[in-house]
C-alpha cells in the first residue's frame, strides 16, 4: 500500500466504499477502460467478456470509445415514449395513420426513427381484430420505437406459447378478448418488426396528442394489453 499512498499523495482510509473508490482510482491509473458499476459483486463471465471485447476493439482500432458512447446514447433514446407519440399521432390524425399502415419506416421517420434496415410494419387493432407480436426464434423487437424488449417478451414461455394459445396468454396479462374478435399473432424476424396501434379507448374524445400519448403503454404496443382511461 505504501507505494500507492505515495502515488496518490494522500492517505486513504481503506474501509468500505471509500476503499472501493480508492481502488477504482487505482484501476484508472492503469488506464483501464471499463468502469466497475457494482461495488459488491465480482463481474460474471459475460460481464467480463463485454469489458474485454470493448477494450480489445478499441485498442485494435476497430471501434472508438466515442462511437460506443454514441451508440449507448442512441440506445438510451429508444424508449416506449417514442412509440407512444407515434400511436397518439395515428389516433389524432387519420392521414398519418394511413401513412403508418402503408409504410411504417417512412411515416416513423417524422419522429426521427431509424430502424436500421429492418422493415417496420404497423398493425391496427380494431373492433374485429386484435394483434399481438412475438419473436419465437429469438426476441426481435422494434427497439427503435420501444427500447429493449422486457423480460417476459424474451422469455421462452411467451415466445413458445403466444403462437399456440394467444387468448390464454393474453388472459395472463389481464386481457380478455371476446370470442367474436379475431386474434392475430405476428411472428417477428430480424428484418421485419411490428408495432401495434391499440384501440383508442372510449372517453378520450377531444384529447390532445400529448394527453393521448400518456395512456399508450409499451405492453399495449406489443398487443398484450389494451390502453385504458384511468
Amino acid at each position, binding site marked *: 500500500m505504501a507505494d500507492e499512498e505515495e502515488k496518490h499523495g494522500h492517505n486513504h482510509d481503506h474501509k468500505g466504499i471509500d476503499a472501493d473508490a480508492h481502488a477504482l482510482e487505482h484501476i484508472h491509473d492503469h488506464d483501464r477502460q471499463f468502469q466497475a458499476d457494482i461495488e459488491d459483486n465480482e463481474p460474471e463471465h*459475460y460481464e467480463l467478456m463485454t469489458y474485454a471485447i470493448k*477494450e*480489445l476493439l478499441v485498442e485494435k482500432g476497430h471501434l472508438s470509445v466515442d*462511437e460506443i458512447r454514441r*451508440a449507448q446514447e442512441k440506445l438510451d433514446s429508444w424508449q416506449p415514449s417514442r412509440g407512444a407519440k407515434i400511436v397518439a399521432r395515428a389516433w389524432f390524425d387519420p392521414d398519418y395513420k394511413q401513412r403508418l399502415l402503408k409504410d411504417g419506416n417512412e411515416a416513423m421517420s417524422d419522429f426521427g426513427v431509424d430502424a436500421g434496415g429492418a422493415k417496420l410494419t404497423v398493425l391496427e387493432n380494431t373492433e374485429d381484430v386484435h394483434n399481438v407480436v412475438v419473436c419465437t426464434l429469438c426476441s426481435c423487437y422494434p427497439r427503435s420505437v420501444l427500447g429493449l424488449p422486457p423480460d417476459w417478451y424474451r422469455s421462452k*414461455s411467451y415466445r413458445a406459447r403466444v403462437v399456440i394459445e394467444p387468448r390464454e396468454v393474453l388472459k395472463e396479462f389481464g386481457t380478455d378478448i371476446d370470442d367474436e374478435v379475431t386474434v392475430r399473432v405476428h411472428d417477428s424476424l430480424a428484418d421485419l418488426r411490428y408495432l401495434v396501434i391499440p384501440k383508442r379507448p372510449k372517453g378520450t374524445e377531444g384529447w390532445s396528442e400529448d394527453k393521448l400519448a400518456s395512456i399508450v403503454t409499451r405492453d399495449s404496443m406489443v398487443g398484450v394489453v389494451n390502453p385504458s382511461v384511468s
Partner: protein
Amino acid sequence: MSEKFTSAQHSGRGYHDIGGEDFGPIDPKTTEVKPWEKLSIAIGNSMGGQGRKVINTDMGRRAREEMGEKMYNSLDYFERTTESMKITMVEKGLFTKQELENRMNKIKSCFSELKSQ
C-alpha cells in the same frame, strides 16, 4: 419433443425454434437492463448495421443457432447476445479467443484486487 438439430448444419427444427412448445406460465416481472448488458448491445450496434457494418444481425443469429443446445439453454438473453457477438468477432479475426481470455483474466484480477483492498 424429438431431438433438436443445429439449423444451419442439419435439416429439421433448431433448438431455438420453440414456437408452440409449453414452458409454463409467463412471469410478468420486469427487471432493469444492467449497465454491462446495455454496453454489450451498444458495442454490437456500433459494429453492426447502424455503425461500422463489420457484423450484422444474421451473423449473430447464425452464431446463436449454432452455439449448441446446451449452451443456448444455459444462457440468458444478454449472455447469448454477447456470446454470439464474440463468436462472430473471433471468426472475423477482430481478436483471437486467446486474446479475449487473457484480457478477461486481467480485468478479473483488477476486480479481485479492488475487492481485497
